[in-house]
């Protein structure tokens, strides 16, 4: 059974086609419903894609992790690779508002350090309150960084990298889906603050959201993605040491 599945669906084409089809379905639903937030294309494609993989797993009685790794991942990795040049591309919106970077660089760096410090402390205590175990708490702390930074740090402070990766992905999905709504609810007005916040909480995808709001927001989100990774590199292991995680 596994061999047959591999023969028919094991090419990268399956993963690429599945990604495109579920995304287009999401896009269609989003437009039909005039932007209902639950039909946000990325969210729809994520749920639908996992559901299809789960269906294949159920109907063939094979572990879903095997299905994901052997059928979807070869194609998914090809699409995923383009996130690398896409991240680099954010240098342009950043460069376009170089005036703001030059003027406010100190405020930018300080707000990311202090803001992350506050977030990490709050995240630590709320996780304890919710009743997460030590390993899960450690996995939560590095999520402000991009996945490539957050996972090894989670490992270093005895967390579970897979949970951290999940957190980083969901951060981005949440910010992309309801970022503007959160900005409205918490009455965030300062474009520099909004940009830095979106970049920190939503990573690269948060920067795309910020860019939709305006050039200042976009450039600030782009710079926060760079600086926050370095800040997380330093602050999170220190904090973990402090609270003996």
């Amino acid at each position, binding site marked *: 059974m596994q061999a047959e599945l591999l023969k028919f669906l094991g090419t990268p084409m399956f*993963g690429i086609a599945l990604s495109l089809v*579920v*995304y287009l379905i999401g896009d269609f639903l989003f437009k039909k419903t005039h932007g209902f937030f639950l039909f946000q*294309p*990325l969210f729809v*494609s*994520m749920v639908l*894609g*996992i559901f299809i993989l789960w269906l294949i797993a159920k109907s063939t009685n094979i572990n*879903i*992790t095997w299905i*994901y790794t052997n059928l*979807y*991942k070869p194609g998914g990795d090809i*699409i*995923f690779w383009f*996130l690398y*040049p*896409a*991240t*680099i*591309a954010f240098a*342009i919106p*950043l460069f376009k508002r170089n005036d703001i970077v030059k003027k406010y660089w100190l*405020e*930018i760096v*300080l*707000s990311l350090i*202090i*803001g*992350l410090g506050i*977030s990490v402390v*709050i*995240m630590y205590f*709320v996780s304890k309150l919710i009743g997460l175990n030590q390993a899960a708490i450690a996995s939560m702390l590095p*999520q402000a960084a991009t996945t490539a930074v957050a996972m090894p740090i989670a490992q*270093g402070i005895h967390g*579970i990298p897979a*949970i951290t*990766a*999940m957190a980083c992905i*969901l951060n981005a999905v*949440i910010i*992309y889906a309801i970022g503007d709504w*959160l900005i409205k609810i*918490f009455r965030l007005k*300062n474009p520099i*603050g909004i940009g830095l*916040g*979106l970049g*920190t*909480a939503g990573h*690269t*995808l948060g920067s*795309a959201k910020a860019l939709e709001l305006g050039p200042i927001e976009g450039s600030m989100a*782009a710079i*926060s*993605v*760079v600086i926050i*990774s370095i800040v997380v590199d330093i602050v999170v292991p220190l904090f973990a040491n402090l609270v003996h995680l």
Partner: protein
Amino acid sequence: MENKSKPKKSETSIIVQMGIFAVILFVSYLISSLFPKNFPVPAPVVGLIILYLLLTFKIIKPEQIEKLSNFLIGILAFLFVPSGIQLAASLDIMKQSGVQLVIMIIISTVVMLVSVALVATFLIWLRNKIFGKKDELK
């Protein structure tokens, strides 16, 4: 004889734009691998810094890479689809304490957005207080 309002700037071909990206990516991989394991700096982040510096020192003009950049940023949500579907492999973790984890991740997202945004707003307010000028952001 330079006519300032040229009808169309000669556009850098897409192959050249891809070439520029490819070279930057390659160099940033090399640099990224120099960092120690406990202080990871991923290649895309290094690449962003490199491209920013190249633009700032006017070695590359924005027009030379703008088309490809806009395209990539425009399809970013789609590029995230494999990351989202990747969660299929984490369904086992979700079975154990999934609800708690998801709630915690939602809270964390909001906390990070709000605390960074508010600290920045406060610091900029403080700066305007100290230097006594109120400059509008445009």
